[in-house]
């Protein structure tokens, strides 16, 4: 099949349909609205379920219900809307039914703005809902990657009966890029044995997140944690650029990783031995690989569109073996390749072997940039 020039949100939505999504429940919010609008067009055509819910709270609970039937279902939203889904997400995780949530992140906190951001990293990765649960988090950096990951998201959700988040920023949702869509997956005839579809010729199925006796809840928590450790073993994904001989590493996900790749291209032309690690699974995080890298390179630069959320995770893994530095833009600003190239130049020159406070040092640099009015 040939490539089409597709707008991110529409490509993601169509990819979900091709992957066999039988129910979409959502509420409009910029910059993810085209996702819902595409579903509004296509799902009725295909005789599949589409509901514009009254709110994100309702949307996630519709997803929760539909997920209990064992069909592939999902929602898509953006930061504030996703915050409203936290209770429902925790319920879905606690009930161990598969569901997919797409978050096209925007500037925050609060209403903030509708520009691209990665400020929901902690919320999506560390669990913004209550209790111990472990979502898988995928972070695409191109329309094609997103298209592929949405199918993957459904597979992983079903395989592990867990929540899968796909997080992208507003750039990804709004940009157009050529991408190839998968063929239409034919819908499975029969239901998983745990699904509720009516207790015909079998005992009733009950799906709940209550374990009123702490002993049972503890057993459940253990089951979820062991499943997560399985996931950590099997499902780590990342891509790299020029890491083979790299003496310096840049680590960034999604758009910031992609922007970094441009900067690295130029740096390589300048002869700088720098490479890129772009985590695709933010959870499970590529811990082993980061550890290896921290033993290979002299210095690591983490690039994000937030105040350094992934930075904390990288530092925790690197454990001071090499200095870790940080560069981030905030509030909906996407860093440009030249900024990151400047950072690479700086990092390469920086021979100071002690591991300072990366965040504080970055902040004082950023303030100068902001005063300088450079966006």
């Amino acid at each position, binding site marked *: 099949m040939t490539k089409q020039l597709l707008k991110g949100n529409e490509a993601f939505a169509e990819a979900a349909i091709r992957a066999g999504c*039988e*129910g979409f*429940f959502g509420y409009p919010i910029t910059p993810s609205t085209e996702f819902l609008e595409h579903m509004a067009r296509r799902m009725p055509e295909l005789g599949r*379920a589409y*509901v514009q*819910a*009254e*709110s994100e*709270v*309702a*949307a996630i*609970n*519709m*997803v*929760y*219900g*539909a*997920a*209990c*039937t064992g*069909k592939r*279902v999902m929602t898509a939203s953006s930061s504030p809307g996703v915050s409203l889904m936290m*209770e*429902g997400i925790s*319920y879905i995780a606690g*009930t161990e039914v598969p569901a997919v949530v797409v978050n096209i992140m925007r500037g925050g906190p609060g209403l903030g703005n509708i520009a691209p951001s990665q400020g929901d990293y902690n919320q999506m990765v560390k669990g913004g809902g209550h209790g111990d649960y472990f979502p898988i988090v995928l972070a695409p950096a191109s329309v094609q990657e997103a298209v592929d990951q949405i199918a993957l998201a459904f597979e992983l959700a079903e395989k592990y009966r867990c929540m899968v988040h796909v997080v992208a920023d507003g750039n990804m949702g709004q940009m157009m890029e050529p991408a190839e869509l998968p063929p239409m997956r034919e819908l499975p005839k029969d239901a998983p044995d745990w699904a*509720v*579809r*009516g*207790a*015909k*010729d079998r005992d*009733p*199925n*009950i*799906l*709940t*997140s*209550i374990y009123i006796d702490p002993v049972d809840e503890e057993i459940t928590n253990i089951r979820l944690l062991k499943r997560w450790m399985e996931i950590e073993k099997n499902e780590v994904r990342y891509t790299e650029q020029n890491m083979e001989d790299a003496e310096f590493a840049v680590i960034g996900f999604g758009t910031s990783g992609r922007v970094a790749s441009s900067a690295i291209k130029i740096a390589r032309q300048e002869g700088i031995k720098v490479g890129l690690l772009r985590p695709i699974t933010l959870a499970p995080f590529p811990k082993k690989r980061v550890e290896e890298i921290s033993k290979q390179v002299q210095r690591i630069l983490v690039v994000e569109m937030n105040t350094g959320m992934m930075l904390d995770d990288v530092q925790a893994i690197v454990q001071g073996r090499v200095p870790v530095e940080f560069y981030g833009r905030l509030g909906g600003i996407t860093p440009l390749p030249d900024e990151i190239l400047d950072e690479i130049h700086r990092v390469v020159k920086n021979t100071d072997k002690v591991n300072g406070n990366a965040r504080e040092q970055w902040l004082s640099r950023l303030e100068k940039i902001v005063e300088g009015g450079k966006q």
Partner: protein
Amino acid sequence: MNIKAKTVYQRPESLTDATTHYCPGCTHGVAHRLVAEVIDEMGLREKSIGVAPVGCSVFAYNYFNMDFVEAAHGRAPAMATGIKRVLPKNTVFTYQGDGDLASIGIAEIMHAAARGENISVIFINNAIYGMTGGQMAPTTLPGMKTTSSPYGRDVELAGFPVKMAEILANMEGAGYIARRSLHDVKHIRKAKKAIRLAFETQERGLGFSMVELLSSCPTNWKLSAQKALDFIAEQMIPVFPLGDYKVNPELEN
């Protein structure tokens, strides 16, 4: 003339053998039994999917002998919507308390009705938050003392009882909306007829259906089981008049 025993009444098949955790005399039990009888009589058990709320009936799935899910507090109608939309042929119903449906879940019930969602809702109005120990509900009567209205519900500060049957009757998407009571045998029989009509509304694709049932909470009302039923008759019915609030004409024939 030959004489043999004939069974006049026994437990419906749609109830499991489990004993309930409900307090003695709590009419949640009656409501369960009526729903189970209707599902038996209509032969819907094998295609029914129930949605339990958060409230004293949170464990309803242990008592109904059919597929069940357990919703987040107040979100049962949204969860039921999700199920019904992907399984339109199944019978989907929620069972909700008044805190669940009229307070935290009012948005979900209003919009399920507005969409004409083809689900049935059993709404247990006991004018109190039972499970959490007797706090004020939107349905608590004016002046009624609860643990969160210790001086009696002050309508100036806490407003008047919310009348869901009347409100939902405004929704064009609603096919059948009724209020009944569980306080005596006569009314229990009427309640069962209404529940039956609600499920028929769904089976005939006539849209959203809800039966509000005035129900007792002897424990938090601090009354004996029988006195609690009297309280329904004497105190609640005047505030929550019984009757049909919306009936799709098709249901009449």
